[in-house]
């Protein structure tokens, strides 16, 4: 009797610490995030065995929310490297991203409000994207295929109370950004975006080195086109802006993305001035143009459609089309400078 009890206890214990890998492959999404067991402790977001945290060099702006990312690769398998593309993850992999706001940005120890956890799950036929919204008690997140609106407030760096109408995207909206040649695709985990030091609990080491050590990836090329952290002002303005545009716009605005039909391509590898938007006339922009003639009008940020659409919060005008209800002041300032300094 005691033995059986111990066995049951053991099973519960191991279950709690191991990812439910079969759920990643199942056709139906479970109703609760905890069913996957990505976290040992849901509320504190302590990852389970085999779930590794990671960061990107530059991150997509999502209404000033903070993001924490984890990757899960099934044991014994690894992703393969593809230059300038997202790593080719094996079936059964998962990318996990929790969006949250600190209660007070000046003192992170005051805690945080979890908003949603988005999952990208690699099925045998490709990626699926879905989001789970956190409950009030912050101990469980529930499947929200049709999305959800959450009103939240937080205190920012300057001590100002900020508020946001935060949208958890619906399943189709996930795909609006996560599209590569009409297939769902992650955006962040390209080798070039991971090429930075990360503080793991046991060591401080380049993420790519760590991933190789853990067999998450098998090999990488040395030449990576690594972007810069757009917030790091030791880099040139041009590098910072191109890195920002790449991670915020380039997944859609590329010849393989959803905004392919616009001819405006903002990914890091684009070099043709016209396709970068310089003196490029709008195509099917409608009132998104704001009455301006060019995407980027060198020397004149105030007459550049690109900046106009970054500033706007009108859903019929703003860019990106989803995932934003506030404007990103710091980036606007940077891009304003970049366009104004551009040679005419």
């Amino acid at each position: 009797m005691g033995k059986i009890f111990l066995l049951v206890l053991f099973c519960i214990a191991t279950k709690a610490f191991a990812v439910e890998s079969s759920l990643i492959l199942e056709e139906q999404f479970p109703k609760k995030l905890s069913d996957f067991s990505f976290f040992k402790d849901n509320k504190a977001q302590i990852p389970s065995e085999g779930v590794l945290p990671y960061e990107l060099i530059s991150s997509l702006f999502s209404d000033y929310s903070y993001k924490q990312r984890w990757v899960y690769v099934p044991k014994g398998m690894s992703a393969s490297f593809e230059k300038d593309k997202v790593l080719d993850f094996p079936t059964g992999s998962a990318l996990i991203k929790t969006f949250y706001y600190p209660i007070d940005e000046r003192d992170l120890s005051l805690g945080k409000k979890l908003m949603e956890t988005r999952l990208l799950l690699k099925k045998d036929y490709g990626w699926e994207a879905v989001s789970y919204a956190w409950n009030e008690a912050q101990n469980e997140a529930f499947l929200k295929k049709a999305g959800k609106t959450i009103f939240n407030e937080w205190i920012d760096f300057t001590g100002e109370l900020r508020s946001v109408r935060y949208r958890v995207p619906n399943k189709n909206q996930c795909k609006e950004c996560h599209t590569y040649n009409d297939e769902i695709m992650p955006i962040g985990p390209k080798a070039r975006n991971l090429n930075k030091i990360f503080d793991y609990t046991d060591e401080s080491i380049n993420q790519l080195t760590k991933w190789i050590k853990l067999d998450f990836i098998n090999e990488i090329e040395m030449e990576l086109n690594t972007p810069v952290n757009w917030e790091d002002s030791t880099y040139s303005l041009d590098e910072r802006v191109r890195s920002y545009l790449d991670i915020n716009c380039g997944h859609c605005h590329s010849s393989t993305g959803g905004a392919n039909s616009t001819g405006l391509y903002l990914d890091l590898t684009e070099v043709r001035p016209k396709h970068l938007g310089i003196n490029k006339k709008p195509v099917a922009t409608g009132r998104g143009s704001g009455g301006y003639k060019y995407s980027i009008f060198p020397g004149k940020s105030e007459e550049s459609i690109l900046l106009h659409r970054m500033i706007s919060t009108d859903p019929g005008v703003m860019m990106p089309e989803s995932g934003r209800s506030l404007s990103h002041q710091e980036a606007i300032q940077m891009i304003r400078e970049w366009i104004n300094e551009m040679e005419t």
Partner: protein
Amino acid sequence: MKILVLHLSLLFLSFSINAKQVFLGPSNNSQEEIQEALIDLEPGDILTLKPGEYFFEDGLSLDIDDVIFEGSGIDETILNFENQMSGAQGLLVTSNGVTIRDFAVLDAKGDAIKVIGADGIKMIRLRTEWTGGPKETNGAYGFYPVESKDVLIDGCVAIGASDAGIYVGQSQNIIVKNSIAQYNVAGIEIENSFYADVFDNLTSHNTGGILVFDLPDLPQQGGHHVRVFRNKAINNDTDNFAPEGNIVGEVPRGTGIIIQANSDVEVFDNDIYGNGTVNLSIVTYGYDTEDENYYPHPRSIQIHGNRFGDGGFDPDVGTGELAAILFELSNGNMPDIFWDGILPMNQILFGQPADEKLIIKNNGDATFLTLNPIKFMLPFFDPVERDISEYDGQINPLPPVVLN
């Protein structure tokens, strides 16, 4: 034959057993209910919205192949987006083999219905409208299929778009018919597209009625094989209210049909009148471009058997260049049909290939004006030519579009 019929009915039976039809009515939670239903559809399913008005704060989207999303009538099922807070369009369709029909999309903050990369899309008896009349703050497009193949727009109504009511861009195999476009900047616009039939439509009270355009620096360009027939492009008299910067912002009030760049365009059996600037224009893309793959001149254009009425009586010289130039050239005696006469230099010197020449035939007593480019370049010559009979020739009908 009997066997075939039996076979087909069996196929239909098995299809309908698996498929389901979901009915929804208006509620306080329409956003989530309808969006979730759209996500949960499976191929073969039908989602039916009962009569009533449905309100949304976010856009709707459909990404399942081979489904029908329908309402209960163009005036009965209203999708109202006046309170929209997020989403760049009212309804977005991104999957293949979709039919949407019998509802209206009102006051979307951006485009009303956008369809991207969706082959076999059928839009039937739908209405897109901005209810506050023509305004710069209205969304750009009513119907906006782009990068799609086999596009059908049938029996639709588009009102108040600040760019084009019905806009088909970078697509192939297109039919736009039996539709009405009014109080838009452009009524119907076919842009950078291949094989389009536009017929039995009414375009009136727009800035411009029907536009067939081609623009550079895009993944698909070199628009060709467009037939525009049995339409009414009449009384287009709304001031241009497009935000500046957009190509349609250059269209003067009172233009019936404009063909810009493109090859193999056949315009026949249309009623074209009441357009205060010019009933029909054939023009070159007017900006410099470094795009080497782009051909800016219209070629192989055939205009025949149309019925022209009054036009050019109120030229909108303040918008774009077309009206002002034409007004000056014609001394105020505006033609029904205008061709800018611009050709590549080698063709100016050595002539156009025979099969690329403009043909104008059997258009009643329609008047014509074009420019002779050589005389235009020389001093002391009047470049204006008005002899329409110079353009008479053999009509080579284009084949009809067949949707797959």
